[in-house]
């Protein structure tokens, strides 16, 4: 896979985390999100981008008309494809975004 060098800044990671948090505020229950985080942590650990994004996108797909979900998707679309090192940083930004959703 060819990676186009995109200048990803701290601001981008911040945005990803915030967008993720907003998007997941309306997705599933807390235990659903917990299961998802586990899954994502497993994929991130073995650096498996495909698994990671298929789990993530499947979850996002349930609310694809949500404004926040759209923003996150657009951001991810812009970032793709990711080098393995960028992937880790993005992956943990997303995971931590989900983890920072305030539960009910």
């Amino acid at each position: 896979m060819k990676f186009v060098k995109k200048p990803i800044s701290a601001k981008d990671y911040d945005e990803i985390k915030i967008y993720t948090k907003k998007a997941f505020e309306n997705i599933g229950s807390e235990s659903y999100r917990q299961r998802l985080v586990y899954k994502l942590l497993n994929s991130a650990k073995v650096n498996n981008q495909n698994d990671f994004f298929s789990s993530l996108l499947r979850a996002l797909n349930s609310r694809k008309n949500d404004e926040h979900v759209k923003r996150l998707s657009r951001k991810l679309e812009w970032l793709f494809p990711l080098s393995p090192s960028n992937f880790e940083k993005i992956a943990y930004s997303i995971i931590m975004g989900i983890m920072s959703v305030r539960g009910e």
Partner: protein
Amino acid sequence: MIKASNETRLVGEPVLQFTGNWIIDLGMLGFVNLLEEIYGWDILETQKRIKENEEIVYYGLFPFAYMCSEIKRKDSTVSKKIIEDFLNEIYKRKFRSKKEIFDFTWENHITKAATSRWKDYITERVVDDKKFISKVSKSLEKLKELIRELEDFEKEFIRKNRDEIKRFLDKKGRFQKFKYKDIKKFRDAPIEKFKEYGEEFIKNAKKFKKLLSKVDRYLDKKWKDEIVGNKDISESTVFRIPIDNKYYKNFLFFQPGYTHEKQKEEFYHAIDFKIEKEDHILNRIDKTINKFLASYRKAVNIYYAPLKTKFFINNIPYLFVYLFCFDRAFEYYRNIDYLVFYSNDIFTTYEINKRLRLRKSKIESEEDPNSIFRGTWQTVIDTIIEMESWWVLENLYLIKYAKLDENTQRFIDVEYMGISRLQATLLLDDDIRRNLNQRVQVDENEYRWLFEEFIKNKSLMPIIMNHLVLRLNQKTKQRKVQPLLYALAVEAELFPAHDFTNLFEDPMLLKAKLDELIPKIKESRKKMGMAMTNIQKLFSKDIRENNAPHLFSIIRRQSKYSFVNSLLRLIISNPEKDKKLIKHLNDYVFHEIVQNDETWIYYALGLFIGFIGGKQ
């Protein structure tokens, strides 16, 4: 006890100031030490006295103190009263010239102070050197007779009480004759000491002591009548004040062949700077002062021009006074040799050396050869903080001499202790200094001083790592966490990416940067502390203890994302769901670890300390 140097400056320009030449400067320090040794004055008092009446100090107080100190070095005594009387009298009198001050001091007081030294010397020579008596019998006409009387009795005494004498003097083997040190032992011992050796011994020992004091009385009278208070002393060398110096041999007043009058004259000229004969050239500043210098006569061409007195007189009046005192700047430390701490400020240098002397026994008792470094730094920092002269930090030296001995004059080591302005700035902050001023255990019997590593520009990280291994395995009793957090925060902020290397930067800009640094370090330390506390709140003791080894090994492998991964798993599977705590940790991990590629490991360790706990 000296006050802040700022205050001493308010008193006015100090009269004694360092010149920048370390030999002269240490001489000046030795001069201050000498006056302190004899009169008990600190540096402020000495400065004050010089200001009030310079000539009294250099032509009266100095020669008297110098002679007293040399006499004491010879194990003879100078009573307190002699010193007090001298001080009282010299300040009461009016003098018309410096020569008059010197003559008054020498004739009336130095001679008085030298009485016991002279008597000891003559007795020693007469007893230990057969030929000496005939040399001096012209001047000390009765001495020969007294000594014969003493020796005759000595023979009888030894014949009758040989075994007891051997026991008393702790001697083995054949014993025929007393040496001076045996006689001294008899002279100094009280009669009660003789009791255990039987009646006859007591009787003979008493008589021996009597004969000894007869000799002593004769010498005492002779010296007091003919020398003390007198001007024209006999030409004989017998009446020379018997002093010499291990470090300097060539100064004429140490010459054994000189008469009393000549000795006095040479001493005066040395103070007065007139110890050269031709053309005011400083012939005697060469090898006499320091073996590193060539002899002027033998190597005239090594100088671009002859050193003329006037250059020195204008800049450093009393140069030789200071040079004489050079060896008095040093203090002898067992296992370390002669040592002095030197910086560019006389007040700081004086105060630090004084405090080092107070800590002497502690410094000597430590087995660790680095203890002098440690002791010095501790003292240096304490003093500098108190005196607010932090600029001194950048110019510190430890000078070590193997022996203060005329043959070698060899110094072992000059250690430059100066530290950068950056380090100085950090150490002047109370919190940072207090926390880095800690010894941290790194192995079973090994401790590291954070402070020392820091000023030696070494990384603190390996120390923290090794220490944490001990804590994990419960092999240390140390529990404090703040020094660890400060060490981590300091290093995180000083990471090479931060540019403090440019020393030639505009000082104003550098200062601004340095001013920002301390708040930044404190902020980092605070963040780490919070993260550590929150970990302790969030996880039970069991969870923390079970997971600590695993997390630590990940940090050691420097595997950032594995660490984050494991930590997030723990957080998400933890039954405790305090949202605030989790949010805080989440932000910390995100900003300080995930996003931070350079210094994440310091923040990871800060948080990790929460897993092993400790005392705040």
